């Protein structure tokens, strides 16, 4: 059917917008890079034994890099929510919905666009880590699994954020949702700190927080820790469930205004 063609057309639009609006892209790199520069620099001066005791490794940047990349997939969610709100406000959604293109194509194109935007950060962040002297191991399979993990995380978050913004035409809503969700999700994961020193209730949240799972997979690669492949299965389940919710909401609530 025309669904696939419509998806491809809409996805191409999202990709073109990523590089035509390079400034917005640079903004998404800023937070993780700033984290690496400032936290990395200040913590690298700590006595080695403290670092090892607390983080389990003397390499703080190597420790926090997977956490930052996982957390940055939250911003893909914010972006997808923002883009559907803008499309509604500028009437672009109307223009799409007066064609036979199915709503599912619109939904998938937003998710895929957001995930693409998120994954563009991976090489940039790896390069930044290399520049700060992190020795990245050569582990092709590991990197593929890591990227798959980030992709699943991005699919999950952008689906949920899209569902939340599906009926909104207020551009402040996505920002509001981001403020309410992003920081708590980051702090209740192992993105910044190891779970060992968390209180029991935070540990309980961290153990089901998908950001933790993507972080641990990344750490497995960067710090040469072994990890269990069920982590990827958990993320796949998270992505599938979120996508199902997002699709249901899109079918029911994606209207022109």
């Amino acid at each position, binding site marked *: 059917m*025309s669904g696939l063609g419509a998806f491809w*057309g809409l996805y191409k639009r999202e990709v073109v917008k990523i590089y035509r609006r390079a400034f917005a892209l640079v903004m998404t790199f800023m937070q993780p890079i700033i984290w690496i520069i400032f936290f990395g620099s200040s913590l690298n001066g700590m006595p080695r034994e403290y670092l090892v005791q607390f983080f389990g490794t003397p390499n703080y940047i190597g420790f926090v890099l997977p956490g930052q990349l996982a957390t940055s997939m939250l911003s893909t969610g914010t972006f997808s929510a923002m883009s559907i709100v803008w499309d509604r406000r500028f009437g672009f959604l109307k223009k799409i919905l007066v064609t036979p293109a199915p709503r599912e194509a619109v939904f998938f194109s937003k998710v895929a666009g957001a995930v693409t935007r998120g994954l563009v950060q991976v090489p940039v962040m790896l390069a930044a880590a290399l520049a700060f002297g992190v020795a990245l191991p050569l582990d092709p399979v590991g990197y593929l699994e890591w990227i798959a993990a980030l992709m699943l995380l991005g699919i999950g978050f952008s689906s949920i954020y899209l569902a939340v913004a599906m009926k909104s035409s207020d551009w402040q809503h996505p920002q509001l949702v981001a403020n309410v969700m992003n920081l708590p999700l980051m702090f209740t994961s192992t993105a910044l700190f190891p779970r060992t020193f968390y209180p029991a209730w935070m540990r309980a949240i961290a153990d089901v927080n998908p950001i933790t799972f993507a972080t641990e997979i990344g750490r497995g690669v960067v710090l040469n820790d072994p990890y269990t492949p069920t982590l990827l299965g958990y993320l796949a389940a998270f992505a599938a469930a979120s996508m199902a919710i997002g699709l249901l909401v899109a079918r029911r609530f994606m209207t022109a205004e």
Partner: protein
Amino acid sequence: MNGNAIEVLDLVKRYGNVTALAGVTFSVSRGEIFGLLGPNGAGKTTTIKILTGLTPPTSGRAYVAGFDVVRQPNEVKRRVGWVSSEVILDDDLNAWENLELQARLQGVRNWRERATELLKYFDLLQSAGRPVGGYSTGMRKKLEIATALLHSPEILFLDEPTIGLDVNARAMLWDLIRTVNREFGVTILLTTHYMEEADALCNRVAIINLGKIMALGSPAELKSSVGGEVVELEIERPVDLSALKRLPDVLDVAASDGKIRITVRKADETIPAIVKSLDFSAVKSLKVEKPTLDTVFMKLTGKRIEESHVDYRRFYAMIRRSRR
């Protein structure tokens, strides 16, 4: 189902307790330029939204290109093009990319050929590689019409096509609408609150106000329905009017302080007879008043179109409240 391009039967649309359309019936023949003329908030855009499948009617039936807009929306959507009142293009994309997106949404194969033809026709080929954000208003409007024509629709919906355009751009667009209708063989339904626009472009016009059609016919029919044209003579001294009153095409003669107002069916054809029927050396000046569609609107509603706009912000605030 007959061969009409659009068939609308007793269409009603309510948003909560706000009635946007209160039972509208009309049909548009193939190849016609049909106008919905009325003030803002009259129900014109709501009608287009229903006919393009963007929103379902509360009750009533509508067939577009022979398909039911509620039961077969995709069949309808494949056969219609829509140009909104505000230009909707992606400013980050260039003309080619905007056209490609439309082609993929409509499932048009070999779109490049058709797109090149349209860009050439609309004189946009030179600038087609530039992001649309830098286009002038007229260029954007043209590109939007080109995207709406890309999938060769049978029917084109133009919602307030010349709103916000300057005089030159408006004249250009009127020409364009006429040639698109003629050369591409597209039926056009347009909405407007400019009476000159409806008069200049449309084969038939439906005058719509507060969700109801007040009158429907060709511009000439509508204008003659208000009682003909007026020839006004300014005279220096009293003249004998008896011969004038006996003329067959003269409907009414009214004389007052140095002026004679003669109501006739067609001024152009009756003036020679008027000149012969009275002592024209007494006439200082002659003026012809032809009724406009605004005269028609005024006779039907007691107000000018310009005075009848529903305050948009209040209207939509009302709709939003009633939805809760």
